[in-house]
Structures are given as C-alpha cells and as structure tokens.
C-alpha cells in the first residue's frame, strides 16, 4: 500500500535538510554520476526539439539531454512563436519531469474516499475496471452520466476526448474556458463568426491599448508578446509604438506600459464605449471600413419593418465622455485624448484580457473592446487583429453513433451549455459542482479529470470536493497527487510534457497556420501512460462501437495520420513530400508553419450571417430567439439573472454595472484575481523554481 499526501511531500521538498544525501557528507548534492543508460555513451549529449506545455502558448524548445537525462531547456530559435525566448515557466519544465511527487504508476483507491490510501495496479486492471463500469453505465442507457473535465481545452487531446464522448454518448465535455478566456472567444464567435481567440499583427501596429490585458504576465501569448514588445519599442529606429494599459491594478504590465490609466473594476466596457463615442462623434473612425465590412453600425429596419438600434446611436446616446468618466473614474479629457491618439496612430489595436471579460457584464465588455478594432478599420489588415488560420491537417474519419450514443448526446449538458441556464456561453464549469450536488438535470455517475484540478484552481474548491465525493466513479489522469486526485477511485498518471508525443496547435499568436511537435526528450521515468493512449485503450476495452472509432494502435499513430495534410501543403516550412523525410525534418525543426498571413481575406475573416463584422450580432439574436421563443420568457429570464440590459442592446456591444457578491457597504473592495507569470491559473504551483520566484521581482 502506498500512502500519499501532498502536504507530506511538499514539506519534504521545502525543508532543505530533509533531502540530504546519505554517504555524501563533505560534498552534498554530488552529481549523480549515474549508470549511463543503454543507447548512450559516457559524456554524450543530444538536443531534442519539442514544444513546451507549461501554458498554451506552444513555444518551441530545444532540450539538452546528457547521458539520457534532460539537463537544460532552451528556446528554439527557429520557432516563429518564441524565436528562442523562454519564460520562467518554460525554464522550470525539468522540475515537472523530475518532480519527486510524481506518481509511479496507476493506482486504485483503498479505504474511504479522500483518505489517500492507494493500491498500485496494472494498467490492464485499471483500464479494464473503468471500462467495465462505463460499459455498465452505457448498457443501462445512461451514457450522458459520464463527464470529462478538460483543463486544456484546445488541441488534439480535446478532439480525442470529444470523439470518445461522442461514441460513448455523453454531451458532458466540460472545459475551463468559462474561468479563463471565454469572454474573448465569445466576442469573436458572435461578432466575427470565429470561435477562437484573436491573433494580432504586432510587427506593424503603431498603438496598443490594453484593457487589463496582462500582456507580460499571464496572457496566453506572453512570450510571443515580449519579443513583439521588444520590437515595438526598439526594433524600428526613430519609431516607438505607444502602449497604454488600462487596469485597476498596477501590475507588471502596467509598470512596463508607456502610460497607465487607473480604472474602477468591471467598467472596461463603459470606457471602450466612451472611446467609441468620441471616435464616432468626431468622425475619427474608419468610415470606409465600417461601411464596407461591418453590419449594424447604422440603425436598420428588419424584415418586419421594425426599426433596430445601430451601434452609432448606442454610443452617441448612452456614452458621452462625462458620463463614462463618472462610471469608470477615468477623466473625460483622458478619454478624449486616448481616442484621438488611437485614431491618429493607426493601425491601433485594442486588446482585452480574459479577466476583463470575467465579470457579470463580461460578454458586452469583450464585444465593446472588440468593436474599437472594427471602428478603427484594423481587422484582417496589417498591424491589426487577425483571425488564426488553422493548419491544413487531415481529419480523422467521422464517427458513427449508435442509438444509445445518439440518445445520450441529446440529453442536456449538466453544466447548462445550450440551455437557458447558459444561453450564450460555451461552458459553465463553475456551475458543475452545484449541478452535481443537486443531481440535476440528471446525476453524474462517472467523472474523468484531465489536466484539471478544480478543487485547487476553481472558485469554491470545497464544493468541488463535495461534488467529487458524490460521484460514484472518479478517475484522475494527473501525474501528481493533487487536491482533486485525492477524491478519485482510480489514478491513471499521464506522461509529463517531455515524455510524450503530441501535435500542438497553440493559442493564436502568429496568425498563420502552425503546428508544433511534442516528442519525448527522455524515456518515460515511471510506469505512466499518455492519456491519449488511455483514451484509445479505454475505447477498445469498451468494444464495439466505441472501439471502432479508434482504429489506431496508439495515440502517436492517431497524430501521424493527421500530418498527411501538411505533406500536401504548398507554402509550408518543410518542403519534404515523402512522409518519412517529412516526419524526420519535423522532429529536427520542432514545428511546421506556413509562410505569411494572407491579409484582407474577408470571407475567411467574417463567416457571420451577414458575411461582415457584426456590431449587431445576429448569432446572439437567433440564439436568444431559439431559447426564448416568446418575449415574456426572455424578460423573466433576464430578470431572474439580474441582467439590466434589454432589447437590441443585448446583441450589441453594451455595458451594465458588474454585480458582485456581498453587500457593498460590508464588502467595499473587489477581489481581482491576479495571475502572476510564475503561477498563472495555478497549474504549475508545485514546481519549486516557480514557488521560490518573487511574484514581480525582488522589492527593495
């Protein structure tokens, strides 16, 4: 029996003395001149190109491997995302690989839930047990009772989980989006028709206005942005891009900005609309762009002849600078000046932070900030905002669903997506514990945690712990004994980043198609298994029809199938057309990318109902109509949710005061969850080098 508690191991790590080395009194910490593993010569070193996984930016790495052990991580100078740069999280990657707390192999719970007593089992036994329980659930006609909580909601593992849930028959694929950057993605979805974060052409821009965007801390493209900022400041002799940061908190990014503008929490949207007011009123906006490429700027008549409100009227009537100054705490003259600066330094970019949109008025806020980019005519143009082009990868064969799967998939999602409970959102993971505890709309009977530790990283972790305790089967794929894994019945430890195969389509940064390769730098240290392989084995163990959707021997083979598409691409960075030569070159270079971004491809940029950028989102309008067919239902719903906005404004960029828990006189302060570069969302908090790093340097 193995006993693990996180606290024990962390204490051991913390107390330096506890890890003193026996038999090495004079020169402690003596280098492990360990036996050189097979395939390695004494003193031999190799460099392995791979892709970082400490955040979702997908920086290219070169790992120095000496006598079979990884000893240093460097940035890959060829890689377009980071050009050799690596942040503190990436640099600390080896401490993830060699973390002393890592689980040695699959475990099965012994004793009561949460007691931390485990029995090592074989992979066959663990996967067999879980498959049996899942098959039983399915045969009872309850496949929808399986949920997957996915902490890395993009890329091929997300597609693989989705495939698994499809053939199994559950709609419950929950991601962490709603707690991170959903607001920004939703603004893109509803105004651009593209459900993806934007990319930006930093190289050619002249002005950047950040709305709380933690560009140099925990933005999803932080390393790319640091290199870009370096260029914007010192890369063009005689010219400097102005960077203004608007934020309530004076953090690292605000300190590095050319100007910091202090603002009341949750009022970014009002400021953006105030800026829009000035741009429109003083005719500083790009009239030609707005005329040709946008919908809903002017008031319009719908099919039934009714007058609809335009964005122009909304900002002119509702957001004069004096009123906005009162709402935001930003002086009216500053609002006038910032608008003028943006207009006279085009192309100018307005960037929102995920956090800026993480309030009860988040969607309207993200849309309002985004609307500035349209007003300034910088969408899909050099120096502006870009729509990430997907890589031309081959697709996996579509899956066929049987009757049980179809019925299960038709069930409403437990986290409320697609129902009135989450009318416009992509997910609502915060809602999950409450839904599980209530057993509504139906009980969750099996739950799989993938790269997710909600008990630690989500609001109200105790509710998560309680909810996990209520689910009859909990499986964790964590490589570490974390707070959520403590409540699991089975732990199927994943490989860490430097041990596994993966293709990475990173968070948008360069705009043009890019696929990073992740390949093992070292032989897996423990008896772990890539979760991709676990999914495939689980599907096979479930038998038909699930197994049929996973014809590959392993996850690596599933990925290589996708690469076929790149072989045929014409402007790719790897010219080889022979599959073996292509893979070999990909292994050397660490990534494949297509050259250059094709600007002004309007049909690609705006796949909306109008084929234009939509100030007035017809997608929001039709979604609300579908969910609330009669006016009364929508009114009741908005009232119940405490939403103040009504009518056309719901589909336009708009602002209303944010709502906070607690009475304002009792709780006069608002908590702004600050994400330092060494922690971000908390996924790397167990890494000693990052725990020891001061949050924003050493203050004298």
């Amino acid at each position: 029996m193995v006993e693990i508690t996180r606290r024990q191991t962390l204490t051991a790590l913390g107390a330096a003395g506890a890890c003193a080395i026996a038999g090495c009194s004079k020169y402690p910490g003596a280098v492990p001149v360990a036996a050189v593993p097979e395939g390695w010569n004494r003193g031999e070193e190799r460099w392995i190109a791979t892709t970082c996984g400490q955040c979702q930016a997908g920086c290219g790495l070169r790992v120095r491997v000496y006598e079979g052990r990884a000893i240093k991580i460097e940035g890959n100078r060829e890689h377009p995302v980071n050009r050799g740069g690596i942040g503190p999280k990436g640099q600390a990657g080896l401490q993830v690989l060699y973390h002393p707390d890592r689980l040695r192999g699959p475990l099965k719970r012994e004793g009561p839930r949460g007691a931390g007593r485990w029995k090592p089992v074989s992979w066959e036994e663990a996967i067999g047990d879980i498959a049996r329980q899942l098959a039983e659930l399915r045969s009872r006609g309850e496949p929808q009772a399986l949920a997957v909580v996915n902490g890395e909601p993009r890329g091929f593992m997300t597609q693989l989980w989705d495939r698994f849930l499809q053939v199994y028959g559950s709609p419950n694929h929950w991601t962490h989006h709603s707690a991170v950057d959903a607001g920004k993605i939703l603004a893109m979805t509803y105004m651009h028709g593209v459900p993806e974060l934007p990319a930006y052409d930093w190289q050619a821009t002249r002005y950047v206005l950040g709305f709380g965007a933690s560009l140099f801390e925990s933005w999803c493209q932080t390393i790319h942005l640091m290199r870009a900022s370096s260029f914007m400041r010192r890369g063009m002799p005689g010219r400097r891009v102005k960077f203004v940061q608007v934020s309530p908190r004076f953090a690292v990014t605000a300190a590095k900005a050319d100007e910091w503008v202090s603002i009341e929490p949750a009022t970014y949207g009002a400021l953006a609309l105030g800026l829009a007011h000035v741009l429109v009123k003083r005719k500083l906006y790009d009239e030609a762009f707005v005329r040709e490429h946008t919908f809903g700027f002017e008031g319009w008549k719908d099919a039934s002849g009714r007058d609809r409100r335009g964005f122009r009227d909304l900002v002119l009537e509702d957001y004069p600078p004096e009123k906005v100054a009162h709402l935001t705490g930003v002086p009216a003259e500053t609002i006038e000046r910032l608008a003028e600066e943006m207009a006279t330094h085009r192309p100018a970019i307005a960037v929102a932070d995920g956090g800026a949109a993480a309030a009860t008025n988040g969607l309207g806020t993200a849309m309002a900030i985004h609307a500035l980019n349209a007003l300034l005519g910088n969408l899909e143009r050099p120096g502006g905002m870009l729509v990430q082009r997907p890589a031309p990868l081959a697709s996996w064969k579509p899956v066929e669903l049987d009757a049980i799967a179809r019925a299960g998939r038709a069930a409403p999602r437990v986290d409320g997506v697609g129902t009135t409970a989450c009318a416009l959102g992509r997910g609502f993971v915060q809602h999950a514990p409450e839904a599980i505890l209530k057993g509504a709309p139906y009980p969750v009977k099996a739950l799989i945690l993938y790269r997710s530790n909600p008990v630690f990283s989500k609001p109200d972790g105790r509710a998560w712990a309680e909810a996990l305790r209520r689910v009859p089967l909990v499986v964790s794929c964590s490589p570490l004994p974390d707070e959520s894994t403590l409540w699991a019945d089975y732990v199927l430890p994943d490989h860490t980043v430097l041990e596994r195969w993966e293709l990475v389509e990173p968070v948008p940064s360069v705009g043009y198609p890019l696929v990073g390769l992740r390949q093992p730098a070292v032989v897996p240290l423990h008896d772990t298994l890539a979760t991709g392989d676990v999914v495939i084995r689980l599907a096979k163990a479930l038998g038909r029809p699930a197994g049929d959707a996973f014809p590959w021997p392993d996850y690596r083979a599933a990925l290589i199938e996708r690469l076929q598409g790149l072989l045929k691409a014409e402007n790719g960075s790897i010219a080889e057309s022979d599959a073996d030569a292509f893979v070999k070159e990909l292994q050397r270079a660490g990534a494949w990318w297509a050259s250059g971004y094709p600007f002004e491809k309007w049909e690609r940029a705006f796949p909306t109902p109008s084929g234009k950028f939509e100030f007035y989102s017809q997608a929001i309008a039709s979604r609300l109509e579908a969910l609330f067919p009669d006016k009364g239902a929508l009114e009741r719903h908005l009232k119940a949710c405490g939403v103040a906005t009504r009518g056309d404004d719901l589909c336009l960029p708009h602002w209303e005061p944010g709502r906070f828990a607690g009475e304002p006189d009792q709780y006069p302060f608002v908590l702004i969850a600050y994400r330092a570069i060494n922690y971000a969302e908390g996924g790397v908090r167990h890494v000693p080098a990052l725990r020891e790093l001061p949050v924003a340097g050493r203050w004298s």
Partner: protein
Amino acid sequence: MNADSAEPSGRRKFLATVAGAAAAASLGAADAGATGGERGSKRKWGMVIDLDKCTGCQGCVVACRAENNVPMGGQTESELDRAIYWMDMMTIAEGHYPELRVQFVPMPCNHCENPPCIKVCPVGATHISEEGIVAQIFTRCIGCRYCTTACPYTRRYFNWATPAWPEELKKTINPDVSVRSKGVVEKCTFCHQRIRAAKEKARAEDRPLTDADVCRLPACAASCPADAIAFGDLNDPESEVSRLARSPRALRLQEELGTHPKVIYLREAKWRE
C-alpha cells in the same frame, strides 16, 4: 564553516568528478590552460541589458539557476531570504499613486574592472580572470563573507545551508558546472562554461570566435524572451555590446564608487510624440 574542513585533495577530486569528461572545474583553470593558449587574450567580456526591452518576466532568473546548478532554497532558506540567485530581478518603485514608476532590473554580477570583493578576500579565493570575469575559487573560500559585504551590488551569495536536491531533481544537474558546498560563497560567472565550450567549438572548426558565437551565450541572454540581454567583448569596438554601450541610454550602476562595472544598462524610455 564546519563543512569546509575537507582537505584540498578530496575537494579537487570531487570537482574533477563533477566536471566529468570536460576538465575545467574552476575559473582559474577555465581561463588559462584549458582554453587553448588564450593567455594574454585582449578580450574583455561584458553584458548589456536593455531595461526598455526587459518585461520583468524572470525567465533569466530561472534559466540561470537551472544552468548553474543553483540549489532551490526551500522554505527555510527562502523565508530567511538566503535563497541563492546569481541573476536576480530587482524591482525599484518610485512615486505615489497614481504617479507610479516601477522598474525591473535584472542583476547579474557586474564583473567590475575594479572589484571591491577581491580586495577584501583574505585567502585569494576571488579573482578576476584575464578576460575580465570576476570569479570565485570555491576550494580556497573559507566562508568569511567579507566579499558579500564588500560587494556594493549584493551579487555574492553565501551557502548557509547544505545545497541539496531531492533525489530525482539531481538528474537535472549540469555536468559542466561544479556543485558548491555549504560554507562557500558563489556568484555569477557569465556562464564561463558556455564561453569555454564556444571557444572549443570554434577551435575545432578552425576559425576565430565571433561575436555571433557569444552574443546570446550566457543562459540568461539565451532565454530572454524580449531579447534584452547581449553579451560579448567590450574591447572589440564592432561587437554588439560595444555598439550598445555607446548608446546615450547607457549607464552603469553606482559608477561613482569607481568599480567600473562591465554590466551596462540601457535606460528605460517612454513614448513621446
């Protein structure tokens, strides 16, 4: 300094083991014989850090610790503010809300031309190499900490505790850098092991060492996402560091002390119309 009573032979033996096949253990050896007849070199290594480019990410801090086998402080040492950072990110705050100014200053050893640390060392454990690297010879250090006190930049660190790694993290130890013991002072070496390797590579290829070979050579410079750190020969007027050092933004820290630092900072600028 109890752990430091080892006889020299034992320590030397250990250091040799540490370095493995590559011989150099201390800087003395690195800069003289082991570097292939470079005695009398006219090089003067220096570094330029552009504070306008730096975003305070501390990638350099973690890269330095990883490259140079700097042990984790752990909870105890960190709380006592004794954790070791050859490269540290200093934060300087001025002004009052809302007129605030906060600057991030990456601080390696300044490798002074006239280093105060050398003058106070009673045993000759700290010295400056022919190429201008201020170095510590761990085998000579008696742990008196005069040098840590003398350094006006606080860039010298004393090993208060036994440097230790959890068993598995020992695998990350760089064989090119010696591991220090309790009771000795350690500091930034401009990653001399990388300089040595670059020299050896150039020699093997039968060509001179170029500016491009060394410009991003130290671990901090190599990892900097903002490309803010340049390294090279200050005696070569054509090198990137020399070019940058001629910038009107260039400054050295506490120059008035007469230390002549070879780390040159480029002042942060702000946008103006």
